[in-house]
């Protein structure tokens, strides 16, 4: 306990950071004037941590008191969080009518104009690139998700990273990159034009490369980092093309200019639907790369090579949401009720189809993964695909002039983004807790047995992430087990918990679109419904394999929740996951997020009325077809999936061991469903194909080996022999020439005087000759 007390004292260091915003608030300032703090604080501390970490590397105070910069990073993110909360509070308090100051002008261009009086510099209007903030419910929600989760993950990372010897003396690198990554996300959410959005987007791409390759001495990690970077790069090229096309159409990339009237281009020209749709599709390909959707999804599972806090950061809080954010920003373009451009239904259909395919594919691959983090990675892909499908349906509704339905599914998709980010962030941290404690027990055990005195001995034959080595952890890691249970429930969509409220909206509205003219949306709608049941299976499977049944490895007896700093974020997020979804649904979060209502409130109902209304809405919608869809979803995800998982993987704990009552019922119940042997199925060809991630990696590698690699070899040859050859020829010739010229520099002053005299005589002779 004494040790823990000492650990908590470290939190005192972040108090000064947290006091800055309350002080500014007390001076009566406006939050939007200080929005730069959100971005500046992490940016400054990126440099501070990186430099100080190099100087004081290994210093006792730096390592023990400042946690190798972790506490400084936590302070900086705390400052961002408090500034963001202040802004969110003001935004909600003023019902969205909030003054945003003049953008800070970053680059100013002089525009030369030519008229009858000749060239002159234009004096009217601002020409250049400014940086301001853009606030609407979407950016406010995402800002909260990003700042809040980054803060909690940083907190978790202090516990996770600094107690592992393998990281000793390199954690400042981790924390510096971590805060820079957070800065990228905050900036991207706040940016008020597409150019800055793109810049911050790329900062995140760079940081994800650095963080995935944190263990760069491991070949697999270096490979994964490279893969993630290059795969997202494919999307980014298209994104850039899309932005250039948008600039071509509107003559500006400012949200204010572009969204003011998307149907009118630069100089009052009418925007053609085909051109705009191509531009938006380019943007969408960028989003697909960033959010790991089919067919650019291959990088995300490999990204698990990074430390677990990075997985949480990339896969829940930040980078993957960037793509969703970009697609959600497309709504004004297609919203025909508000100056949108008609005739772009295909865009919504493509988005929805990509989402549907990814959701189904990722869920089926998740069936057979044994690595706890990989299950979560595929689950992330699948859930993001839900959101994409929802956004696609929303784009379709908006473009077919059904504003009401579009707004509901748009708000529902964003709400799912919120619920998923909270739950998945927590799930990744909980899996990190499991991995960390199992690893801890393993190295402790092998050390005390004297098998090896190597830091990570026995790594070769023991994988702390493999769920086949776990089982029965419910009694050993009570907090983690509870957190994981609630997180899984939210992802599955167990009624009344977190993700249920948003997932239900997405599925039912996609079906609604099919029933009302969108025949092409039948595919995504069916895929989503099937995926709901599959989600129930693979998430339950993960939980049962990890926590229920008898331990499958003798090591499990030695696992305890010992590491400080890890539990707190789990508890906070558990509470938000359980009641946050329902609570926000009661306050009309969906209407607010879609912009249909300006404030979060119960619209004058009493609490009981509102609860009854919401429940009725969710379980007994008036449209009979949707009622069937809703109940089918619930039956698949709540009943069929989990029970099948329980039959295969469930089981009660070992005799005499008891978990906390909150999860004990689950292990007990799972043993009542009997058991089923699936070895035959597990050895089938389908399972093998799923194990190999449906051969996508092999396919891409094969295609690359046949096309790009020969071309690259030719380019290398050309570069070496032709381009370098010319340059080398020039070089060797000038060397030879200079050897000759060098001879006349004798170093003797008299020779130089003679040369000067002769030269002067020559000049005289020349002048004389010309004169004559």
């Amino acid at each position, binding site marked *: 306990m004494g040790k823990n007390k000492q650990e908590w004292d470290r939190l005192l260091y972040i108090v000064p950071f947290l006091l800055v915003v309350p002080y500014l608030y007390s001076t009566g300032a406006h939050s939007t004037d200080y929005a730069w703090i959100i971005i500046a604080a992490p940016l400054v501390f990126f440099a501070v941590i990186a430099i100080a970490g190099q100087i004081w590397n290994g210093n006792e105070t730096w390592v023990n008191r400042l946690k190798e910069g972790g506490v400084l990073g936590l302070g900086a993110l705390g400052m961002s969080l408090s500034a963001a909360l202040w802004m969110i509070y003001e935004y909600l308090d003023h019902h969205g009518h909030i003054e945003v100051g003049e953008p800070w002008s970053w680059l100013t261009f002089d525009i030369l104009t030519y008229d009858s009086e000749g060239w002159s510099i234009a004096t009217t209007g601002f020409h250049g690139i400014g940086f301001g903030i853009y606030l609407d419910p979407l950016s406010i929600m995402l800002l909260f998700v990003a700042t809040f989760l980054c803060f909690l993950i940083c907190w978790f990372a202090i516990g996770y990273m600094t107690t592992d010897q393998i990281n000793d003396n390199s954690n400042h690198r981790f924390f510096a990159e971590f805060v820079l990554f957070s800065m990228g996300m905050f900036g991207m959410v706040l940016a008020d034009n597409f150019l800055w959005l793109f810049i911050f987007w790329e900062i995140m791409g760079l940081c994800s490369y650095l963080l995935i390759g944190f263990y760069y001495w491991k070949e697999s990690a270096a490979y994964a980092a490279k893969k993630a970077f290059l795969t997202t790069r494919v999307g980014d090229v298209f994104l850039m093309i899309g932005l250039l096309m948008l600039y071509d159409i509107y003559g500006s990339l400012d949200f204010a200019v572009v969204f003011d009237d998307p149907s009118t281009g630069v100089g009052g020209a009418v925007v053609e639907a085909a051109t705009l749709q191509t531009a938006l599709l380019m943007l969408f390909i960028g989003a697909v790369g960033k959010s790991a959707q089919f067919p650019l999804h291959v990088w995300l599972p490999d990204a698990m090579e990074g430390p677990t806090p990075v997985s949480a950061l990339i896969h829940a809080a930040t980078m993957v949401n960037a793509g969703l954010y970009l697609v959600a920003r497309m709504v004004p373009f297609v919203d025909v009720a508000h100056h949108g451009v008609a005739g772009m239904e295909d865009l919504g259909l493509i988005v929805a189809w990509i989402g549907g395919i990814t959701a189904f594919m990722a869920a089926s691959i998740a069936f057979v993964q044994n690595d706890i983090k990989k299950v979560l990675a595929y689950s992330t892909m699948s859930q993001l695909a839900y959101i994409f499908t929802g956004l696609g349906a929303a784009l379709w509704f908006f473009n077919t002039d059904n504003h009401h339905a579009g707004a509901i599914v748009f708000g529902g998709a964003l709400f799912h983004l919120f619920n998923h980010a909270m739950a998945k962030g927590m799930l990744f941290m909980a899996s990190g807790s499991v991995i960390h404690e199992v690893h801890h027990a393993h190295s402790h055990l092998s050390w005390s047995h004297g098998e090896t005195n190597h830091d990570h001995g026995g790594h070769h034959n023991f994988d702390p992430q493999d769920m086949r080595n776990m089982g029965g952890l419910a009694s050993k890691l009570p907090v983690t087990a509870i957190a994981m249970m609630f997180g899984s429930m939210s992802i599955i969509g167990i009624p009344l918990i977190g993700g249920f409220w948003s997932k239900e909206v997405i599925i039912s509205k996609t079906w609604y679109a099919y029933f009302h003219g969108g025949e092409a949306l039948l595919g995504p709608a069916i895929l989503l419904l099937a995926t709901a049941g599959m989600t129930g299976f693979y998430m339950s499977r993960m939980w049962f394999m990890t926590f229920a049944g008898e331990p499958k490895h003798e090591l499990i007896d030695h696992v305890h929740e010992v590491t400080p700093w890890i539990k707190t974020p789990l508890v906070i997020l558990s509470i938000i996951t359980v009641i946050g979804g329902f609570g926000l649904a009661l306050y009309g979060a969906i209407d607010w997020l879609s912009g249909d209502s300006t404030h979060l409130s119960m619209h004058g109902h009493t609490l009981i009325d509102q609860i009854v209304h919401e429940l009725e809405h969710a379980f007994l919608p008036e449209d009979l077809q949707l009622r069937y869809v809703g109940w089918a979803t619930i039956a698949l995800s709540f009943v069929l999936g989990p029970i099948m998982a329980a039959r295969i993987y469930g089981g009660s704990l070992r005799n005499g061991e008891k978990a906390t009552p909150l999860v004990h019922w689950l292990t007990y119940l799972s043993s009542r469903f009997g058991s089923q042997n699936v070895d035959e199925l597990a050895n089938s060809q389908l399972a093998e194909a799923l194990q190999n991630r449906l051969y996508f990696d092999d396919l891409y590698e094969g295609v690359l080996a046949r096309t790009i690699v020969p071309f690259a070899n030719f380019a290398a040859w050309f570069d070496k022999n032709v381009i370098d050859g010319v340059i080398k020829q020039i070089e060797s010739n000038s060397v030879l020439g200079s050897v000759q010229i060098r*001879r006349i*520099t004798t*170093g003797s002053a008299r020779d130089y005087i*003679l040369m000067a005299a002769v030269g002067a005589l020559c000049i005289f002779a020349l002048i004389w000759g010309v004169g004559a």
Partner: protein
Amino acid sequence: MMIEASWIAGLGVILFGIGLIGAFSRKNAIVVLMCIEVMLNAANLNFVAGALHHGSVDGWVFTAVAIAIAAAEVAIGLAILLSLYSTQETISLDEANLLRN
């Protein structure tokens, strides 16, 4: 009786030739410096001759300025020679050829 301007110019040419030949034939750096001064003064004589011939005062002014500058230049030249001697222990120009090739 006034001396003709052309005589003065002729003296300048002769002095300049002597200075030039001395500058690139002698080894001793001090002598070379003196030869350079001779050439400078030959140039001054040319200015004087020009002033006489044109009857204007410009040439006299130039000569006065050139003499003042020449004095400063000699000081620098001698300082260079002193530092050359203190580092190389010689003032022979044949041996001061560090910049060769």
